[in-house]
């Protein structure tokens, strides 16, 4: 069983070596003549204003948070999907309850509008 994973590890090794070779090739073959203007980050031809370490919308954080929760839900569904015919009615009801509870969470999220990136006022940012 474990030997099935050996090709994956081999592939991982090949992929990393290939990527590093490609990257170092351009470093070796290409010229390297940096100057101050060339190294400036692009800002439409102007001198860059400040650092690009701006604070950004909390919405992105909430997306990541929601993602963890629903990713877990998806992962929990997989083992059930594999054997749901053998697991019987009890497990089916258990899964129904599970899905309903998580749907409440999703409904709440959508209702309150935290994942809404349009600038309209929602319950969350009003």
């Amino acid at each position, binding site marked *: 069983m474990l030997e*099935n*994973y*050996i*090709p*994956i590890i*081999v*592939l*991982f090794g*090949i*992929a*990393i070596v*290939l*990527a590093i070779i*490609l*990257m170092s*090739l*351009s*470093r070796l073959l*290409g*010229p*390297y*003549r940096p100057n*101050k203007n*060339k*190294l*400036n*980050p*692009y*800002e*439409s031809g102007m001198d*860059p204003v400040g*650092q*690009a*370490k*701006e604070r*950004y919308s909390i919405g*992105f954080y909430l*997306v*990541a948070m*929601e*993602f963890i929760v*629903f*990713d877990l839900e*998806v992962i929990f*569904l*997989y083992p059930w*999907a*594999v*054997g*749901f*015919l053998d697991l019987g009615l009890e497990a*089916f009801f258990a*899964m129904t309850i599970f899905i309903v509870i998580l749907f409440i969470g*999703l409904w709440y*999220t959508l209702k309150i509008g935290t*994942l*809404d*990136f*349009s*600038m309209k006022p929602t319950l969350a940012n009003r």
Partner: protein
Amino acid sequence: MAEAEVNSYLVLGISLFMLLNSAALTVYAERRIASFIQNRVGPNRVGPFGLFQPLADVVKLLLKEDVTPIHSYRFIHTIAPIIPVVTALMTIAVIPFGEGIYVTDINAGVLYLLAVASLGVYGVTLAGWASNSKYSLLGGLRAAAQMVSYELPLGMALASVVLFVGSLSVVDVAASQEYWWYLFLNPLGAIIFIIAAFAESNRTPFDLVEAEQELVGGFHTEYSSMKFGMFFLAEYMHVVINSMLITTFFFGSYHLPFAGYWLPEMSPLAKAILDVLVFTAKTIFFIFVFIWVRWTIPRFKYNQVMNLGWSKLLPLSILNFFVIAAILFALNAA
């Protein structure tokens, strides 16, 4: 093990080679098809029909200067392009190209695909963050939020396929479509999967990540030379790989439609050749669809993308999963 099984390292080598080449060919195809759609000529100078254009592009990229902007995190800026290339290459390990023609068959193959896809988020996010450019940062953030959001419908659509198969092995998924493709049994799942696959590979209409009118180049604004080339390569490899995944999960993998009913017995060699040809043909078709859509449909706004993902596709995919489960359960009980 079955006799038809081909040495996995042979498959690994050939498929890696084909994947890298197909990415280059896809670039060429994209430019030719785009020029056809826009009524232009397109690249036709290098070699016959301009076929060597990708080669020339690679040489050009290799000879360009590799610039890292000041105040960027040099280490992360350097390793970020490696991540999407590696994750794209890792995917082929579990895809069956024909009966018994696969690199490896693992017990949790479908989840492995999800795992690899979820690791791909780091490449764009870190690239955007490490570049010290506002465009890059916004592009990287958008990319991360978008890829993460569409991973959920993707996962749910795959789960609804798993209901039919009763196994997480991708080889089993492919083999079980001998009679009925899952496109016919699970059409909603197929549509959700295709949309999510487009979003995952950051292609139009979901290419907010590099929306050039507002974000210049998105997360790869500050990348040049082969570092940019790797993002470029990874994008096209993702197109190829997502086409393979759509084929594998919903369009019968290496089976012709309803092949189990009418396809006569064949010698193993003829069957293997037919399988690989069918699989390749379907993959090429979906690569064409990816390109076709890119030059036909305009881009969404960001709030539309998030809205589609969270309030339409995710509930729909969960409902689809649940309804299919209920029907299969009722059929089994009856």
